[in-house]
């Protein structure tokens, strides 16, 4: 039991008990929809599931690092939208090449991550408050930059439409899942096998002790928010690629979906323990639920209700798992 907890953050891709439970739940859920609805069985449905997993998945990977420090990031959703709005707006107004638009979108997200990092690590504002402030600032700025107008990214058949193939080929093959898995693996390794990851987990576990060990905790805290920012930008690209049009004012609430995925995946909000694999499983559970429930005739409000219950059950299962064992 003790060694298991240890493995959770040590071994890069081995699954702790909570991840196994989550994985089991994911498989059961998928099979349930598969059995209940014939139209769920198509490859297109799988592609739909992935579509809704990309942007939440990126947000969730990034915020896992912040949560590992014991922090939280409420700005995920609005920064995603503001990054995409800024990128798309520059694309239209300065006829940027598409590759540069993508880089700028990621950069804008990263800059907001840096802002969060400075507010939390340097100016010592509590993460909840700092990122709540950034959430509002980003939402306001996005609207101001675009003058509250929708930004449309290039369509697939337009000259600059190639970027859409990053996440899905024109014959509907979900290439994006490889992009997502690639980043999950890279970040999983960074979390488990590098100094950045180690120090982030250490300071999430006991910040003062980590500081007294001579680690520059402020720097690593800041890095965690910058990582989160980078992934907000990347999520912005995924979002633009999947949905083409970006509405100013959208995005609020995405952060809760992403954080829910992280929680279901077994990362503790207390900090010090984190699993990218778990996060990916959590995100897939949310995506399967979101895509699958309409197939068995459940309306959106039931989806919200069920997602809420899933979060509570997942966490209760974690809290009580040791008791069950006995």
């Amino acid at each position: 039991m003790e060694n298991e907890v240890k493995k959770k953050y040590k071994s890069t891709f081995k699954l702790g008990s909570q991840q196994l439970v989550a994985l089991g739940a994911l498989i059961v859920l998928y099979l349930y929809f598969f059995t209940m609805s014939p139209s769920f069985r198509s490859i297109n449905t799988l592609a739909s599931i992935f579509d809704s997993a990309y942007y939440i998945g990126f947000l969730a990977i990034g915020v896992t690092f912040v949560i590992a420090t014991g922090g939280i990031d409420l700005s995920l959703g609005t920064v995603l939208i503001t990054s995409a709005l800024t990128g798309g707006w520059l694309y239209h107004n300065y006829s940027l090449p598409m590759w540069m638009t993508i880089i700028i979108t990621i950069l804008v997200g990263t800059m907001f991550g840096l802002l969060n990092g400075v507010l939390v690590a340097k100016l010592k504002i509590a993460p909840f408050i700092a990122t709540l402030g950034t959430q509002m600032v980003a939402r306001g700025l996005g609207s101001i930059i675009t003058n509250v107008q929708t930004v449309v990214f290039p369509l697939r058949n337009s000259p600059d439409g190639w970027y859409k193939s990053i996440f899905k080929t024109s014959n509907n093959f979900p290439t994006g899942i490889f992009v997502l898995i690639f980043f999950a693996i890279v970040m999983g390794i960074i979390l488990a096998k590098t100094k950045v990851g180690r120090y982030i987990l250490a300071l999430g576990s006991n910040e003062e002790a980590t500081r007294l060990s001579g680690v520059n905790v402020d720097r690593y805290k800041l890095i965690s928010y910058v990582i989160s920012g980078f992934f907000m930008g990347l999520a912005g690209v995924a979002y633009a690629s999947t949905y083409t049009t970006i509405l100013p004012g959208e995005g609020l609430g995405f952060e809760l979906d992403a954080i829910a995925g992280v929680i279901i995946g077994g990362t503790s909000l207390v900090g010090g323990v984190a699993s990218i694999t778990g996060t990916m499983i959590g995100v897939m559970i949310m995506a399967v639920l979101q895509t699958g429930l309409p197939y068995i005739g459940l309306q959106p409000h039931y989806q919200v209700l069920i997602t809420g219950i899933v979060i509570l059950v997942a966490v209760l299962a974690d809290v009580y798992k040791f008791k069950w064992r006995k």
Partner: protein
Amino acid sequence: GENDTSSNGSSNENGEKLHIEVVAKGFQHQFWTAVSEGAEQAASDFGVTMNFTGPANETAIQEQNQMLSNAINQSPAAIALASLDTESQIDLISQAQNSGIPIIGFDSGVPGAPEGSITANASTDNYAAAELGAENIFDAISEDVDNATTEASVRIGIVSQEVNSMSIRTRTEGFMDRIVELVATSDNVSEEEIAIVGHDRYNNGVSENDAKVVVELQVPAQATDAAIQVSAQTLFNKPDLIAIFGTNELGGNGIINANQATGNRLQTDVVGGGFDSGALQIDAVRNGVLHGAITQNPVQIGYMAIELAVKAVNGEDVSDVDTGAVWYNASNVDSEDVQALLYE
């Protein structure tokens, strides 16, 4: 037009320009950008000043109330209002009435407002506009309907971003009522063989198993691109789907995105229709992906709202104006008439 005050005497006793407060339903959709452009044009034509505002999204009743309240407190010459919810604004509307501020309804207007509180409306008849959509789509699927059986039923999908705000609800109902009516004209299908499913509000109790035609309404959990795409995908992934209709720009975009995500059925066996324009929908109509879409005349709506307001302030007799709606498809999308009604 800034100093063009002569034509309609659009200034008060002190020679200051008349000020009109415009409270719209939102900002973010390109539709509203076009409305505000029309309003600005009119303001400059009539030499009045204008403040155009609207809540973050079309479900933010409380935010719009706040805006209407602010607008009244500014003591403008007139207010143009596209109400999200009339009932919650009754107190405010009567407050405006007591202060002698005329209210002009625009877009879907201020339905159900007390007699005499709204001076005039510049609005689209959303119900009729959606009926237009139903008629055009039915033409393309009537053969399928004639061949439908209870074993091989066919499905007509509707994607609405929500069903609470007056305009979207009216469109949803306009399309639904008319399509059911048209389907029932087929000798093959009686009204009892049409199942309306997908939303508790409209379910008609007919089981899908007993129906030859299923009309299914999908509403997303949130009014976002991501969520509405999931709603549309759910429909596309049902093999018996033959038609799908989106009741606003978000719905149309959701259908187009979902179509790409689920194997491009719009290009083969499903007839798609949309509402309003925007880059994505125009492109889809032009390429024949969408069978067609309905456009209102947003510029005209904005323009007429201000024009009616100015006239009302000047004591002229004003009455409701229907700003109209047009079905556009691949054949007429690039015509001059239609282009004037479209916005990217």
